[in-house]
């Protein structure tokens, strides 16, 4: 691949976006950076794991938020030295990080293995069951969740100032975005896409389909765990209610808003979600029309409904459709089969291959 090949419109736009995000702490208020954007990056990272499984594996998982939470709880138990709640193991923070990620990946492996023979709706339901069971495990075993959650969780000194947490979120998000896209072209990613398209065919080609699904679920769980660590550092606390079924649905909603087959959509959806929850109350007259804080979920619900009706591929699908209108010189072929086989038509563009 030559430098010229790398100079595509998307790459230039992406680099510019990252540059703006790097400079953001100098451009925007601390509140916007440390509250809105850090939260966006954390939720986007977790939602990207939903997209990874859905897009490459055809698996819509509701267990990602549980794995996100497991990492947080494990870190809290391992790192805290004193306090009334949790195990208070008092480990070095980075040892606690490693512990949390290993436990999360192990949990993902076991849960993935149990779900690996199901697909579609059954997979969705099974992962929802995981989320419910996970909630009750943490809610009832108070030794590891503390009655009412673990509080005053300190982040490692390296990430002390809030803006460093923002940069950590940005760094991991860029890494996850590029990594997930690159994996799609590797043997692992192609195999996963093959399993998505036709598991029976893949078995007859010699593949162990359930094992491959399990490994993909483990990889996604590991990344979700990294997001969960950022989340617990950002929040400073974690309690079982934060991984209950309601919050679990947030990731799926974010992925649907952004477009469940696009990695950009994960962060875009998270941004829209956080914006609505942060700024909706500030809109003039918003409470006069009956939209108070208690009804924000209704607003999110309406947004999701509109997006699903207008563009099953979410906001990125809308953006993709608007692009030819803005740039009349590009080829205006029919829109990629909306919602059917996820992202099949974009493969060519992503691979940077040219038609012979």
């Amino acid at each position, binding site marked *: 691949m030559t430098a010229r090949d790398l100079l595509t419109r998307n790459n230039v736009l992406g680099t510019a976006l990252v540059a703006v995000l790097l400079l953001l702490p100098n451009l925007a208020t601390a509140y916007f950076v440390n509250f809105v954007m850090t939260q966006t990056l954390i939720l986007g990272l977790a939602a990207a794991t939903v997209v990874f499984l859905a897009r490459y594996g055809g698996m819509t998982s509701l267990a990602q938020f549980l794995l996100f939470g497991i990492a947080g709880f494990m870190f809290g138990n391992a790192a805290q030295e004193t306090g009334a709640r949790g195990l208070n193991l008092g480990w070095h923070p980075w040892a606690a990080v490693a512990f949390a990620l290993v436990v999360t990946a192990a949990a993902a492996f076991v849960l993935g293995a149990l779900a690996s023979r199901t697909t579609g709706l059954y997979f969705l339901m099974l992962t929802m069951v995981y989320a419910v069971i996970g909630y009750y495990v943490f809610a009832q075993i108070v030794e590891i969740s503390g009655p009412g959650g673990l509080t005053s969780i300190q982040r490692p000194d390296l990430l002390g100032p809030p803006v460093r947490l923002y940069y950590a979120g940005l760094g991991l998000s860029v890494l996850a975005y590029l990594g997930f896209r690159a994996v799609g072209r590797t*043997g692992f990613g192609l195999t996963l896409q093959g399993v998505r398209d036709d598991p*029976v065919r893949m078995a007859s080609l010699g593949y162990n389909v359930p094992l491959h699904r399990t490994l993909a679920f483990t990889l996604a769980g590991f990344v979700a765990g990294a997001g969960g660590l950022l989340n617990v550092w950002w929040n400073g606390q974690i309690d079982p209610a934060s991984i209950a079924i309601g919050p679990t649905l947030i990731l799926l909603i974010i992925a649907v808003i952004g477009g469940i087959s696009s990695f950009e959509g994960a962060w875009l959806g998270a941004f829209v979600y956080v914006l609505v929850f942060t700024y909706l109350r500030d809109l003039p007259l918003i409470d006069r029309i009956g939209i108070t804080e208690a009804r924000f979920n209704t607003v999110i619900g309406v947004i999701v409904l509109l997006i699903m009706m207008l563009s099953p591929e979410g906001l990125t699908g809308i953006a993709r459709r608007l692009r030819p209108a803005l740039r009349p010189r590009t080829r205006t072929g029919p829109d990629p089969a909306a919602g059917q086989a996820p992202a099949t038509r974009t493969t060519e563009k992503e691979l940077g291959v040219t038609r012979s």
Partner: protein
Amino acid sequence: MTHPSTAPSEPGGRAPVVQVRAVTVAFGGLLALRGIDLAIARGERLAVIGPNGAGKSTLFNVIAGDVTPTSGSVVIKGVECVHRPSRYRPRLGVARTYQKARALAGLTVRENIYLALAGLRGRHRALWRSAADRRMSDEAAEVARRVWLAEQLDTTAGELAHGQQRQLELGMAIATGPDVLLLDEPASGLSRGERERLVELLESFGEELNLLLVEHDMDVAFRIAQRVVVMADGEQITAGTPAQVRADPHVHRIYLGTEAPA
């Protein structure tokens, strides 16, 4: 008249590559296969023909590992395979095609064939691309050329025409250089020209390839196969060379519903 072909020496005195013995498959109360025996001798091209519902596809799927028989045994190259899943077959050098083309719709022709290679060579758990991947990708292009898909290398399989999907299906099956090739109605839905190309391709493989062909189209089956097994109602009716089977009045009655031409 039945020809139980249980003797391992049949025909030509060489041990069969695939040996099916007394296989029965029951779907609920329906007996799809009734204790059938079948052997593919080394270097043999065998066709199984029969009317719809004869049990051809069930027999095929038993050999390919997609259907576990109710009773009986399937030995491939000396390995008992009845309870081994289909993913074990490629390691024995067995490859198959599907009656309804099952190429991986979201991936390109090159990626489809790449996956056929990677399944056996184990690059499929790598999270990065290596020189081995690039070599397999080049190999995939070469296989695509053999099945006349060089122009469609970067087209997704879902966008291919029906005939091209069959070609890709065949490409995926021959990519790893199997020595037992199982073809499930390869000619179904193909145009006359596409059939000619298929026959030409299969004839180009030569002696080293063992072929089992399940075919509804008698013309294609008789041209490719050296030996033909005729099935009806889950049993073998007769077997022989294409010429013998063509002349067999019993076959005509059961298969075509007419008497043999005088």
